[in-house]
């Protein structure tokens, strides 16, 4: 007995000591708690989940950037490129790079070669999830070590918008990416203020300050990015000071609880994700406009906003998220009117209601939203048969037309074209060769969407976009529900060093001036 006990105790202690290692006292460590079980891909051209994009935001730069703390194109400013010029027809752009920018971990100076490599990579569908954004690029040329020329085959709505530090616009270091190949996703090398240090699966990702960062070495020495999927555990850890920044729940209960904590700042960060129910017109009875209208009338948009919390939610105004260039509320969305919804169903020949099959992801807020919608639609006689599947299966199945309704939440580069092209252009219809995310088989606004894409006159472009939105709303291709902010709780110990309104990375930007007490 006693022998055994001793062995066990020794084993335990040994296990405990192997992990022991004293921390340096003077280090400034920022601990961020993220709602995820693990990191996905921290390759900027592949990163899709919020948990990945947040990290990419700390590791990479673009040729230009949106000023830290902002999330709209009007704040575009120089980043790796100090200046740029464009040809009069707007199809050829020349960028002059900042000198002396260093890649992480000794991968050398960042030069025009790296830009060429990065953009080619971003445009390559095999290596990038965002290649469609760069289809119009004809050629990328390194004029000299610090000069790059990009030629376009047609006019694009926003050249600079796709060269910012967002998605495909992030610049990777050629030498590192080529050397590591597929391993790059777990060991990314960029030029940003922080660089990869280590990764422990299911536990954390550790970044350290980039001592050679062009804006100066960050005051924060290390970022510990902890994976804590359970909200309660994350909040508790935040409350007890075990983490400094806490990824919040877009929910009023969370918001009101956390705002009451002392020494805490809660921020709702732009861009929002628009939650839209796409109605698959190819599935009867949804080919019937009256049925689609009935669904639209059955969604209590304002009540849903109140349910989630007005501090963290806003009602959808159009099929394009609020604030995107070209978004307009000129055509109002259908109001909540359950009586009318029932009447429409009856008119359509379904007095006893309808039953719809819905494939739904198991992912938190999306599943949550669908469950609320299920409860609400039930009240007018629309019965949703939810098939809860995990996220990847969800994506596969909604692309195989397996769901009558598709709830999709997305933030895109904030111009109307991105949203309209991906979700409502018939060329993007799922199941077709050009499939992106047109789950509704919507085709009523193809002409306007495509014309607006190459329209050089901004006014005409806006008008085309407005018409497109009108047609889509009236045809009820989809029912936009609400937009959710990403919410974060930040301890007062953290001094951001800038004014935070939003961040395209959806995370909290950490700039060299950011510090922690």
């Amino acid at each position, binding site marked *: 007995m006693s022998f055994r006990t001793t062995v066990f105790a020794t084993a335990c202690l040994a296990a405990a000591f192997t992990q022991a290692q004293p921390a340096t006292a003077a280090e400034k460590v920022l601990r961020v708690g993220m709602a995820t079980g693990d990191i996905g891909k921290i390759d900027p051209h592949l990163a899709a989940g919020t948990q990945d994009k947040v990290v990419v935001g700390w590791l990479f730069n673009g040729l230009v950037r949106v000023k830290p703390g902002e999330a709209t194109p009007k704040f575009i400013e120089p980043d790796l490129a100090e200046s740029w010029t464009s040809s009069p027809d707007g199809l050829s752009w020349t960028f002059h790079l900042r000198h002396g920018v260093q890649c992480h971990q000794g991968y050398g100076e960042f030069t025009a070669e790296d830009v060429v490599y990065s953009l080619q990579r971003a445009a390559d569908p095999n290596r990038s999830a965002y290649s469609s954004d760069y289809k119009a690029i004809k050629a990328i040329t390194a004029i000299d070590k610090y000069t790059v020329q990009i030629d376009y085959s047609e006019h694009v709505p926003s050249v600079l918008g796709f060269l910012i530090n967002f998605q495909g616009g992030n610049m990777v270091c050629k030498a590192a990416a080529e050397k590591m190949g597929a391993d790059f996703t777990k060991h990314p090398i960029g030029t940003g203020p922080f660089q990869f240090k280590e990764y422990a699966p299911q536990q954390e990702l550790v970044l350290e300050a980039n001592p050679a960062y062009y804006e100066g070495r960050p005051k924060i020495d290390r970022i510990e990015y902890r994976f804590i999927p359970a909200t*309660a555990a994350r909040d508790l850890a935040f409350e007890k000071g075990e983490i400094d920044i806490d990824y919040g729940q877009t929910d009023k*209960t969370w918001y009101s609880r956390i705002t009451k904590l002392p020494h805490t700042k809660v921020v709702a960060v732009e861009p929002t994700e628009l939650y839209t129910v796409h109605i698959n017109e190819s599935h009867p009875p949804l080919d019937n406009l009256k049925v689609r209208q009935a669904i639209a009338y059955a969604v209590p948009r304002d009540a849903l906003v109140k349910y989630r919390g007005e501090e963290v939610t806003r009602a959808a105004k159009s099929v394009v998220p609020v604030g995107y260039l070209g978004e307009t509320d000129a055509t109002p969305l259908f109001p909540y009117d359950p009586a009318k919804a029932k009447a429409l169903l009856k008119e359509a020949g379904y007095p006893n209601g309808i039953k719809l099959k819905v494939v739904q992801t198991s992912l938190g807020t999306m599943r949550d939203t669908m469950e609320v919608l299920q409860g609400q639609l*039930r009240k007018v006689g629309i019965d949703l048969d939810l098939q809860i599947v995990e996220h990847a299966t969800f994506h596969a199945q909604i692309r195989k037309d397996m769901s009558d309704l598709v709830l999709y939440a997305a933030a895109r580069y904030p111009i109307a074209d991105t949203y309209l092209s991906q979700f409502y252009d018939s060329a993007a219809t799922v199941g077709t060769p050009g499939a992106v995310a047109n789950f509704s088989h919507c085709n009523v606004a193809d002409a306007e969407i495509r014309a607006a894409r190459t329209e050089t006159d901004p006014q005409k472009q806006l008008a085309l976009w407005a018409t497109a939105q009108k047609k889509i709303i009236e045809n009820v291709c989809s029912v936009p529900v609400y937009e959710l902010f990403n919410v974060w709780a930040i301890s007062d110990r953290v001094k951001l060093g800038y004014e935070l309104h939003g961040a395209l990375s959806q995370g909290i930007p950490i700039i060299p001036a950011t510090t922690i007490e």
Partner: protein
Amino acid sequence: MPRPAGSAAGRLARKLWRIATANITIEAGIVLFLLVVAVAVFAPLIATHDPLDQDLFERLGTPSTEHWLGTDSFGRDIFSRIVFGARISLVIGLSAVLTAMVVGSFLGVLSGYLGGWVDQLVGQATNILLAFPSLILGLMVVAFLGPSMINLIAAIALATVPQFVRVARAPTVALRDRDYIQACRALGFSPLRTMLRHVLPNIWPEILVMATLWLATAIRVEASLAFIGLGVKPPTPTWGGMIREGFENILTSLWLAIFPSLAILVVVFALNLIGDGLRDALDPRLRKDE
């Protein structure tokens, strides 16, 4: 051999009654369990609300006269959801264990009787299945097949089958070579039917104990799967799913996790009481020195 069915059934009933009243532990367990069954059966009469009815402005309400156990994050009545949740737990648990019991006992007798490669195959498969914890096995099956009621039942049954195979196989092997079995064969009786006739009376007490205890496990596994997020599809109320929601809101609404936990505790405890009591009552070794 053939006996009047009525008297056989009557004997069985009497025997069951004697076992059911053998000790206070069994009695307490049965009363508690029947209570839960009654709640499940009469759920529509007992529930105070429609368990699916959302009230978006009545979220996470504390227990009140209107909502006895409060409301969940969709504003649904927790009491009514627990009442209806009993149905899911019991239906899944009972179906899974009954399936496992029938399939497992049959396979056990079959493999014990036939021996040879059938026995080898069943034995090997049983060992592999036994090696995996029922939760992990259920997890895999449900993750692969998707969480539906049938798949959950299949998953839990699959994890439970080997237990019954094991119980049924050993006595079959012991009986196989007995003279009278050989004699039956010589007389042209279907040997398998003979086996079942002779083996089943020997093993049913143990099968009964197993069934009770594994019903408890099945209900726990179902709840665990629902907690992981692999339960019956929403909005159907399940206890495990409710605890999962409760855990997300544990800092603001503790009762959300507590009440369904208590429900699970009660039914599993009741079943364990029965199983434990049965074991005492049926175990000749324990009975002797009592």
